[in-house]
């Protein structure tokens, strides 16, 4: 049976520690299941380092480690980056440029969703996106995870992985679906990529052609030539889906696509409001219904 993303992550961490490339840092790591079963059951002597609850300091401690080794840093909920990011962004991301001292960190930042409130819900890669010196990917498949780790090992960058716990059971690779005479092309990030396929199938039955471009590299935004061709030739606007608020990554990427094609690209992400815990107050990544409605707006039906 093919490996799930969860198993791939766990294996990656185990091998990283075994090869002594760097330690793995985070909070409450000893409660292995707390991190959704993605952390091997190891101890401090193996390099699994439990930090205290001091999140801002912890971000800095891992930066210090990055000056010496290649650490992996696990941030249990992406929203905790509000406290963890400051020293990473302002030091690690600039260290090579300013002082010629690389400070590589592999940041495993985990997105979650569903009745978990305003901080622990959804993805927050936009916190990092606007700053120089950071690389951002969002792996949703085992191969993508391996690709991300491989990049980290071969380079000296701070690499932010916008993970999503709902992808951890996935073992399939997600490939682009680019139709020749497409009606709409969807560019999807993170967990929204799974919805994009459902949308494609739904509209197929109605004879409406939807193409799918899977965004793995968020920063730098790696745009495939074929995406641009498909967007240029599409009958209607493009649509970009994100699991974060749209005033950040989503709009910036849409702008890049528009600039290159002169084609309008709309964005759909979290709604511009706080999330609550109850189902009625939650603020989730665009679900099937929201995307379906947006596509109808685009094709004006």
């Amino acid at each position, binding site marked *: 049976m093919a490996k799930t993303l969860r198993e791939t992550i766990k294996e990656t961490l185990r091998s990283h520690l075994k090869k002594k490339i760097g330690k793995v840092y985070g909070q409450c790591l000893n409660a292995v299941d707390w991190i959704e079963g993605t952390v091997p059951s190891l101890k401090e002597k193996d390099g699994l380092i439990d930090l205290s609850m001091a999140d801002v300091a912890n971000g*800095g*401690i891992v930066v*210090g480690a*990055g000056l*010496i080794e290649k650490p992996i840093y696990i941030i249990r909920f992406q929203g905790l980056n509000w406290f963890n990011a*400051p020293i990473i962004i302002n*030091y690690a991301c600039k260290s090579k440029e*300013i*002082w*010629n001292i690389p400070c590589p960190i592999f940041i495993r930042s985990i997105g979650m969703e569903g009745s978990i409130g305003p901080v622990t819900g959804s993805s927050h890669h936009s916190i990092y996106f606007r700053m120089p010196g950071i690389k951002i990917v969002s792996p949703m498949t085992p191969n993508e995870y391996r690709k991300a780790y491989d990049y980290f090992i071969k380079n000296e960058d701070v690499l932010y992985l916008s993970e999503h716990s709902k992808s951890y059971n996935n073992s399939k690779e997600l490939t682009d679906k680019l139709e020749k005479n497409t009606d709409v092309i969807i560019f999807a990030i993170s967990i929204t990529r799974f919805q994009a396929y459902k949308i494609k199938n739904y509209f197929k039955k109605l004879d409406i052609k939807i193409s799918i471009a899977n965004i793995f590299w968020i920063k730098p935004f790696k745009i495939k030539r074929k995406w641009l061709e498909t967007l240029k030739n599409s009958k209607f606007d493009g649509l970009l889906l994100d699991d974060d608020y749209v005033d950040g990554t989503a709009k910036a990427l849409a702008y890049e696509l528009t600039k290159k094609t002169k084609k309008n690209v709309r964005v759909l992400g979290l709604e511009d409001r706080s999330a609550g815990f109850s189902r009625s107050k939650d603020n989730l990544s665009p679900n099937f219904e929201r995307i379906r409605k947006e596509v109808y707006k685009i094709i004006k039906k």
Partner: protein
Amino acid sequence: MNYRLNVFKKASLCRNFELSTSDHINSGKIYVPTYVSTGQEFISSSLSIISKTKKIKPLLFGQHRCHSIYLSFGGKIDYLIDELLGRDTGINKGFSGSASVGNSKINMYGHDGLMGSNGPIGVGACFASKKPTIIFLGDAAVEEDYVLGAMGWASKKKLPLIFVIEDNNFSIATEKAVRRNWEIKDIAKSFKIKAFDIKDCPLEIKYKSKYFFKQPILLNIFTNRINEHRGGESLKKNKYDRYLIEMKKIGKKATIIDQKFKKLIEKLWQKRLEKR
């Protein structure tokens, strides 16, 4: 006496460098915000001599007032001059200015401008490398919550590092008594870190060196910043000048050393300024 003299040599280099720096701030040749350490030289000077005697090359994490750290631990003078002049030939190619100087040759990591960030960063580097580490913080920077968080963790992990608090009583121009009703020595002790209040006298620093680089220790060192927070102007209400005190104690030899460095530094500045 040898120790005292060696420390004085370092301090004299720093003092004369900073006096020239102030002149060039005032003349407008230095246009980047500049933080001179005039009056505080004996802290890094003493620590550099002690480290050398112990044959230790510690990891150094300073903050914005960092010229003395750089010079005491062997950073090249002309590179710092060029950096202050905003040149590409500066130690960090014009990136760091006065406040963020870093130099891997002397294990000195630059500062990012967020006061106190060097606390956790130094702790992390010490943890990952297990190398002796010195973290220099001001009496204000040490108030940052993340410094305290990192201090607690350093204690738990028994790291071989020194938290050096350069306690000049000021955060810009706000005195300690306005900002807090606690002392960092007490906080450190509550974290189970050996902690001392001492003066910036080289001998007092040396007395504590038996505790260095074994487990975390904190030295809150009272010192007197002679200049304004930023720029070349001297403060009016100077308390004391450690440099003059040491000079008096050492005697004629100190005067000779002082004159030697004065000439050397002036010449170096002149040379760099002529090189356009």
